[in-house]
């Protein structure tokens, strides 16, 4: 296991690459879902405003 | 001859034009009125094709203007908020380089058009030395010189004095008598016979 983690001495380059990629992958998912949720909330807010107006 | 059917247009979150329809026939003027922000400028710019419509059709001589834009524009004289005058050119030069792009003009024609909006012959003042009303008059002279069948004018009488407004009325009337059409957005009463006038109030 330790041997695998060391990656033949390349670990200082290899693991940061993987961590960064994972981070970006996860963040993209979070941001995408958040932007959809924000759009929904905005639509709901606008619909409520329209209802209260009419 | 000119008709708009079921126009819809949004500006940001505002639904400015909501299913607007109207038509104008040769020899008539459509006066567009409405409070500030009712969408007068938006409507006129959309009719010209400067703003894309979200829905609806604008027809000129029976053809959809979005299909054959060039043929429509060749017969259109547009006057917007900007006078499109260059401060470093005189009135005559300005006309030569703007109206002159669209049809060949003689110096006499330009002088005649300028005289009809109240400029003395041989006036060499640069546009930036003129008052706002005088600049407006030069812009009106350009509309005359283009000799187009359709005028679409946004606040043409802005900054004009009472004499200027009377002159504009005469020019407009002459245009209508020649069988021209006009769509004019203005609050002021237009000095033309009532039977030539149609009104459209935007709310």
């Amino acid at each position, binding site marked *: 296991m330790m041997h695998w983690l060391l990656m033949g001495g390349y670990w200082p380059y*290899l693991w940061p690459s993987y961590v960064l990629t994972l981070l970006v992958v996860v*963040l993209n998912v979070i941001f*995408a879902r958040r932007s*959809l949720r924000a759009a929904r909330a905005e639509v709901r807010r606008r*619909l409520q405003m329209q209802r209260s107006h009419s | 001859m000119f008709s708009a059917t079921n126009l819809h247009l949004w500006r940001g979150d505002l639904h400015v034009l909501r299913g607007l329809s109207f038509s104008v026939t040769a020899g008539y003027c459509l006066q567009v009125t409405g409070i500030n922000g009712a969408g007068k400028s938006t409507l006129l710019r959309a009719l010209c094709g400067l703003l894309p419509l979200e829905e609806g059709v604008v027809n000129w001589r029976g053809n959809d203007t979005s299909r054959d834009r060039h043929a429509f524009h060749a017969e259109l004289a547009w006057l917007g908020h900007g006078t499109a005058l260059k401060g470093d050119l005189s009135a005559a030069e300005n006309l030569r380089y703007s109206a002159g792009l669209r049809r060949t003009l003689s110096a006499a024609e330009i002088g005649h058009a300028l005289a009809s909006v109240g400029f003395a012959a041989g006036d060499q003042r640069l546009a930036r030395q003129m008052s706002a009303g005088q600049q407006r008059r030069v812009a009106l002279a350009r509309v005359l010189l283009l000799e187009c069948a359709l005028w679409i004018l946004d606040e043409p009488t802005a900054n004009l004095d009472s004499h200027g407004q009377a002159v504009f009325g005469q020019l407009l009337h002459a245009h209508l008598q020649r069988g021209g059409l006009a769509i004019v957005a203005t609050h002021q009463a237009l000095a033309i016979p009532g039977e030539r006038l149609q009104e459209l109030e935007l709310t």
Partner: protein
Amino acid sequence: MTWIWFHKLGSPPHFYRLAGRMTPWFAWPALLLCLGGLYGGLVTAPADYQQGEGFRIIYVHAPAAWLSVMVYSAMAVYAAVGLIWRINVAHALAASCAGIGASFTVVALVTGSLWGKPMWGTYWEWDPRLTSELVLLFLYLGYMGLRGAIDDTARADRASAVLAIVGAVNVPIIHYSVTWWNSLHQAPSVMKFGKPTMPASMLVPLLMMLLGFTLYFVAIMLVRARGEVLRRERGAHWVAEATVES
């Protein structure tokens, strides 16, 4: 027949529902493929005879680089479709591409330079591939900057669409010029992907990662695009139903 399909997909409520239903069909295979690819790449694939274990960076660098280019092309295609046929859904798709593409361009740049350190002895080498990626990042940033500078969504859509198309015409020219420029000064890049000699045990995980990342991109693009479609639909009736149901 094709036109009916085209218009149906272009209709916002239809797209909104369809995208919602399709997302898991892209997301789960993407996850499985990436997990499989990671296992293959990090565990079963043998070390490279030249680069040792360091070559394993390829399993994140190559997919990120691939996404950076592919997303830009997709964005330009959507932009062109939106501009020519005036389809708002296409503009929504283009709008959702930029952020994703830019983030993976950064990943490609950083992993590339991390890979470069053991290979070249320096983090940054003006290698043609990395340089092209850098210019691509600037293109993405310009696109996002233009979008951000225009308040009206419809106008922002159209203006940025023109830029995306101009950029897409330029990308191959930029890549060619950068390669040409670099070839004058040094030997070709040490990073060579998809060598025909690459053994299957290395190649299969790489292909899995590439496919997995692509599916992942489609999934998050669909999620983003649903939001963008809602933003573009202001007062439409279907929006009320669509947002209440979930």
